[in-house]
């Protein structure tokens, strides 16, 4: 496959604008790709029993972008993907909006499912992006870790 040909600068984006899953799916489409799998992470209205009003994301942007590029290249190599793209929101995100969209294409579907899942799992554990949740019950907002639990001292 065309491993390693995805250094296009528009395949990894951190943005304050709403995400467009369809645009990503178009970005990874290719005449040699028979399968596109995409993952959309949506902000939910509750978390650990508390109603969530909204979220804020921040990142170490230089480092996060570089880690995402590295993960994209690793996924393309390891799973034989044709293309992969990852967009993540920063700043305030309303409930029900997409915080992250990942789309990958491959000749056959198994690689696309495995590659997409690898990317969202790796993003959660190894990319310096942080999420702050604001609650309806008036309690202080929490920074939420990769396990879903609040980060605390």
């Amino acid at each position: 496959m065309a491993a390693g040909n995805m250094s296009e600068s528009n395949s990894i984006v951190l943005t304050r604008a709403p995400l467009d899953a369809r645009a990503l799916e178009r970005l990874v489409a290719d005449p040699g790709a028979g399968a596109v799998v995409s993952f959309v992470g949506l902000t939910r209205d509750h978390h650990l029993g508390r109603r969530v009003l909204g979220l804020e994301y921040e990142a170490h942007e230089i480092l996060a972008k570089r880690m995402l590029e590295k993960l994209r290249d690793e996924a393309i190599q390891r799973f034989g993907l044709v293309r992969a793209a990852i967009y993540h929101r920063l700043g305030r995100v309303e409930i029900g909006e997409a915080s992250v969209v990942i789309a990958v294409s491959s000749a056959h579907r198994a690689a696309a499912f495995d590659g997409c899942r690898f990317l969202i799992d790796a993003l959660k554990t190894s990319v310096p992006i942080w999420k702050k949740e604001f609650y309806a019950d008036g309690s202080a907002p929490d920074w939420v870790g990769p396990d879903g639990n609040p980060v605390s001292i």
Partner: protein
Amino acid sequence: MIVSVFYHAFLREKLGRESELLAVFGEAPNAGAVVDAFVSAHPEFARLAGSLNVAVNDEIAGRAAAVNEGARVDLLPPYGGG
């Protein structure tokens, strides 16, 4: 040796600052020594120290990675992307 240490997200909010200069001791200081200096300055973060990631000059670095005079070191609390 003096390094610039930058804080993010949970750390920045708890500390009430974005960065500070920390003195790091030892003959060949590494990223682990910077974390130790951070904990000495802010002992309330001792428990969290093990789960911090460290970036040296905008590259993720293991605890053994060398840190030079004037380096930029980022302390990264547990991630929450996705």
